[in-house]
């Protein structure tokens, strides 16, 4: 079977009583790279968090399926075990838990009991990914994200992505806070994941990232919906012209959530 399929259908999400997503439809298949762009505060992170099961977001309407399985019925850990992954815009800091211990627990949680990854194999795999991502080996022994720079946190998210090898990943602004060199390194890591068995949704504000990771599809979010979809050329146009032409085309005054057209 070639890869998994994530289907998001008419997704409505509320946070603290306010509707943020107002009917999102999106399908991501193994082998596909999708980019989601859009101005600040239009619901991109909300979409990502809701798919993963963030406790603050309430799904009021719609469905999410992974290979036909009802994702909304699953706990957060079950979603991960089913093959979903979210690289967070703002990863948490976990004091006292080393990155390496955390990674090993994560990997083992996705394996059968009694079939834990052998320590040497784990170290070998981690070392090779650390090399790819040009991360200092000491970082694996530091407490998870604690005191990490913005760029280090992002690399750490990609390290986790590469170690866990999910079927479908959502990367929320994985490029923010990265310098040019780091951007290349992180892109290299993500491109290494490219295969029939891996689908990816990349949330970004910048064409810069998409220069390194060419998306198959580009979507624009406004007011809690996907308002336009196209190919890589759509991202280029946004880069040079901004969002005004879309707003004009659709008759939108204020693109943020909570404003109605």
């Amino acid at each position, binding site marked *: 079977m070639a890869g998994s399929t994530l289907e998001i259908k008419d997704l409505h999400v509320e946070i603290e009583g306010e509707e943020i997503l107002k009917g999102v439809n999106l399908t991501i298949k193994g082998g596909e790279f999708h980019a989601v762009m859009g101005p600040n505060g239009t619901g991109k992170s909300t979409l990502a968090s809701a798919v993963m099961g963030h406790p603050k977001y309430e799904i009021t309407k719609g469905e999410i399926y992974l290979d036909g399985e009802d994702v909304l019925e699953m706990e957060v*850990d079950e979603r*991960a075990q089913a093959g979903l992954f*979210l690289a967070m815009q703002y990863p948490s800091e*976990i004091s*006292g838990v080393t990155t390496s211990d955390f990674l090993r627990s994560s990997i083992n949680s996705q394996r059968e009991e009694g079939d834990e990854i052998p320590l040497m194999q784990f170290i070998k795999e981690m070392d090779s990914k650390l090399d790819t991502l040009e991360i200092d080996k000491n970082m694996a022994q530091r407490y998870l994200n604690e005191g990490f720079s913005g760029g280090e946190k992002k690399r750490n998210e990609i390290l986790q992505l590469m170690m866990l090898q999910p079927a479908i990943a959502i990367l929320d602004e994985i490029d923010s806070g990265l310098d040019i060199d780091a951007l290349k390194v992180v892109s290299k890591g993500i491109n290494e994941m490219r295969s029939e068995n891996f689908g990816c949704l990349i949330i970004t504000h910048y064409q810069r990232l998409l220069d390194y990771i060419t998306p198959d599809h580009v979507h624009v979010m406004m007011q809690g919906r996907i308002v336009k979809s196209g190919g890589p050329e759509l991202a280029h146009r946004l880069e040079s012209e901004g969002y005004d032409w879309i707003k004009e085309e659709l008759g939108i005054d204020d693109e943020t959530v909570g404003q109605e057209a």
Partner: protein
Amino acid sequence: MAVDTQLPYDKEYVANYSGKRNEPDWFKDIRQKAVDLADDLPMPNPEKTRIKNWNFTDFEHDVSGADIKSFDELPEKIRVLLGDHVEERNLIVVRNNNIAYAKLSDELKEKGVIFEDIFTAMHEHGDLVQKYFMQDGVSVDENKLTARHAALMNSGIFLYVPKNVEIEEPIQVIFWQEDDHAALFNHVLLVADQHSQVTYVENYVSNNDETETVANIVSEVFALDGAKVSYGAVDNFAQGTTSYVNRRGHVERDATLEWALGQMNDGHTLSENVTNLVGDNSLSHAKAVSVGRGNQKQDFTANIRHWGQASEGYILQHGVMKDNSASIFNGIGKVENGATKANAEQESRVLMLSEGSRGDANPILLIDEDDVTAGHAASVGRVDPIQLFYLMSRGISQQEAERLVIHGFLAPVVREIPIETVQSQLREVIEGKVY
């Protein structure tokens, strides 16, 4: 249910008990006076914890335990505390208040080290024991429970390290209450003579999940001039035991006393750890970790009093509260007038894992001297659901995520504990309490 706070054990009972054990007169005398004091004195009165309904009177006082012939007969819970190469270690196992196993190497005996049952020591080293027993450390008349301790003491260890003797390997005692109803009135008297060095580790273990009983524990630790003492403890009484723990340090000139306390009881616990930095340049670290669970209530006080010039006291305590447990962490740094250049620092942190748990940290600095440095940090918080979301989003179950967060929260203290064996014991015991 109101609990009777007076004891069913009177002077005659105590006199008989003393007589049966052939105790020296000075100690019989302390016991008899203590019976009266125990009747008259008030209970300890922790400010923020109600101990009125705790069980202090339902227990069996006079019990005994069989010798241990082979370590294989010990339950798993005890064996994990022993580690490897048990036979070679300087170790005492106390089973239902009886010495069931005791070993001290010939080398240490030749150097004059005393490590034995405190009642035996009262005969063999009476002067030494009498000099230190409940004199400058804990007093008999501090409260009802210290008096009751002296009156009913039924277990104890005396450890004496002569001048200039440095002991490398930890000396360990396991207090095992095999009998569910057996009370432990235990006294640890540790005297480290001038410029000596010792690491002492104790474990309290019981299995009385249902049956109620009490533990009344007093430790007195004397670090004489230039001595270095590391005192590690892992308290792990089961739910049925109500514990009163009073650990007291007396630190003289240039001496050091390091406390490493794993406060892992499952029953109600009132614990105070007071260190008197008497001598100039004396130093103490009081490090403690706790995990509360079920419906237990606990009250911990770490108190370092500075009398000596340039004395340094550091309190570091981290506690995790689960289920419906509640704990108070008092940290007290007291600098007496004349203790110039003293440094009193403390840090208390409490993490609550559930809606029903309660935790409180009270940092107190009492300073009667101008020329000092002091500082405190305290925090009480609930586990961050976003942290758990982050961990779970990698496939880790909620239980495992909480486990990681708890270990992580306690790690900064556990890692700082100077005694390797206590570190690993603590990790085991924490692991057992997390689920």
